[in-house]
């Protein structure tokens, strides 16, 4: 199973984890969106490579969704929403960067230990892919927890979802992958439309989720 195909898959999946770390330390919304678009491109390459290695042409559809929808449509739409609604361009981070990055490393180490030990009998390609995928999921969760800003929480969710798509394509021959990636795209589209339609900016004067929390403070 060693060889070029394994190394490339490994490289791309590892690249996804690396880009997840890059997402963690972005403190401007526009650069956050650019890095997210980069992550979507890496995901698309990784999925396309899996499609080629596994000889599973339907996975090319998933790769195409990743590149068109996640690398282009969503970042552009969010760019426009940020400009339209005049959202603050800077991202507030709960806590400081250092501990967040260290926590991120801890989570990656944890997912490696857990996944590699649990899947000892599975085939190596799927096994490494799953370990990387769990890392991306964990980093996405960490990002959602440490951001106060609704747009960057959405980006955190989408990067979490990228990890899931990586896991689904890594599991060789898994049915319904395309359907699941379509369902996820619908979900993400709804979130993005929701940010826009609910006009969180207009209602709250800021898109910080902390401001949202104040509304329920008085009524509990």
């Amino acid at each position: 199973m060693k060889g070029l195909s394994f190394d490339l898959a490994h490289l791309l999946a590892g690249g996804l984890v690396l880009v997840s770390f890059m997402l963690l330390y972005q403190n401007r919304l526009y650069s956050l969106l650019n890095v997210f678009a980069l992550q979507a491109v890496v995901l698309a390459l990784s999925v396309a490579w899996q499609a080629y290695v596994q000889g599973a042409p339907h996975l090319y559809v998933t790769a195409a969704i990743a590149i068109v929808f996640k690398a282009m449509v969503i970042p552009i739409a969010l760019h426009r929403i940020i400009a339209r609604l005049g959202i603050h361009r800077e991202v507030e981070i709960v806590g400081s960067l250092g501990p967040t990055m260290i926590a991120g490393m801890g989570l990656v180490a944890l997912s490696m230990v857990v996944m590699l030990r649990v899947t000892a009998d599975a085939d190596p390609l799927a096994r490494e892919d799953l370990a990387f995928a769990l890392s991306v999921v964990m980093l996405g969760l960490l990002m959602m927890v440490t951001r106060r800003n609704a747009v960057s929480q959405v980006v955190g969710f989408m990067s979490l979802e990228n990890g899931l798509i990586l896991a689904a394509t890594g599991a060789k021959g898994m049915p319904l992958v395309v359907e699941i990636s379509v369902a996820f795209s619908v979900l993400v589209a709804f979130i993005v439309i929701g940010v826009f339609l609910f006009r969180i900016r207009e209602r709250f004067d800021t898109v910080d989720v902390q401001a949202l929390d104040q509304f329920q403070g008085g009524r509990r």
Partner: protein
Amino acid sequence: MNAFVPDGVALILAIPAATAAILALTPGYRLSARLNVLSAFLTLMAALSLFVRKPETGPYILVDDLNIVFIVLNTFVAFTTSVFSASYIAHELEIGRLTPVQLRFYHAMYQLLLFGMNLALVANNIGLMWVAIEMATLTTVLMVGVYRTPEAIEAAWKYFILGSVGIALALFGTILVYMAARPVVGEGLDGMVWTVLIAHVAAFDPAQLNLAFVFLMLGYGTKVGLAPLHAWLPDAHAEGPTPISAVLSGLLLNVALYAVLRFKLLLDGNSGAIAPGPLMAILGLVSLVFAAFMLYRRRDIKRMFAYSSIEHMGIIAFAFGIGGPLANFAGLLHMIMHSLTKSAIFFTVGHISQVKGTQKIADIRGLTVTHPMLGWGLVIGVFAIAGLPPFGMFMSEFLVVSSTFARAPWLAIPLVGGLLVAFGALLLRLHGMAFGEPSGDVAPVKASSLPIAAHFGLVLMAGIWLPPPLVAWFQHVASLLR
């Protein structure tokens, strides 16, 4: 693949889907509310037809003795809620809280939600089940935010983010189940078909199944509303339209619980895997005790009953976690009783908050004097939900407690403690609302008492006399659950 021949299953999926499309195009609330009721009624009839003729099990569709209980309960409460919704929505339209366009959207989403829930219940494919639950979540998010007030948007956003994280974790668990199944059942569709999985589960790698169940339990557990992942539930219940609170509490939580049960069965079939029961029992117990104490601090009537839902989902998860024929029987009965009682309470609360123009408990007083029907309805509902005899929940809670004494006596202490604390909190709040000096608006209300009476009647009947065939049926299903 002959899975979609026109039978009961095809109908319970096709009727809501088609009605959703029609309702999206129907102007005028009278017509659309009636269509909504009619469609829910036809779906209920189609669901009942499943008793007579079950469809063949295919790679996508499965109807067995376990999920037929859920399907019938689901379609029944959906029907009564649509009747309640018709009168509730008319009032909302009158006072201008909803515009006709929003209403059209609301009705279409209601049917789409029923479609999603029914699909999740009949799905034999764990991937399809996941997609269906995701769809049901999305539609409820949109309905929770339908009032567009800051509070409603805040609730919808919170529900959205937590619900999305929950279903994302559930998907990871689903992928892990497939990974565990692949070496045994081979690649492709079979690896996600539940009936195939359960037949071969004994040969799966236990470690992978364990990890998968942790993700599935956390993921779908978020949707069940188990602590500590319950944060979305009170807000979503309090800020959305009341029919949606009724459907959320009465149905959607059950659907998520059904998903957990299916995976619990898988783990039970593998001797090397961890026992899933204790995990469920602990999460359930924590939810029960936590929610019971939280009940004391509520000032919003819908929020209070939302915490009560967390409490009862905790009891149900605890009962299934304890396992064994008696506890499973109690869990099933409690689930049905809770769905019926809680949705009827929300029907009552919906009318009460419309009459009084507020959801604040402090502003609602003396209901039995000003609105006898609603006031006594609330009294009956709270008595039933608190587990007083002669209602059905007394029996199911009694069974849960006694089976706990039999199997794990020391767990009975926090269980009974939590039940008593919740009981005290509910009666304390009820006293002020139902009795005392009347306050606020005393105008009579055009309430639809039929759904409320039907639900309480069934709950009362279950508490006094359960027909022997029904008991035999429940015992059979309970034995399936191990």
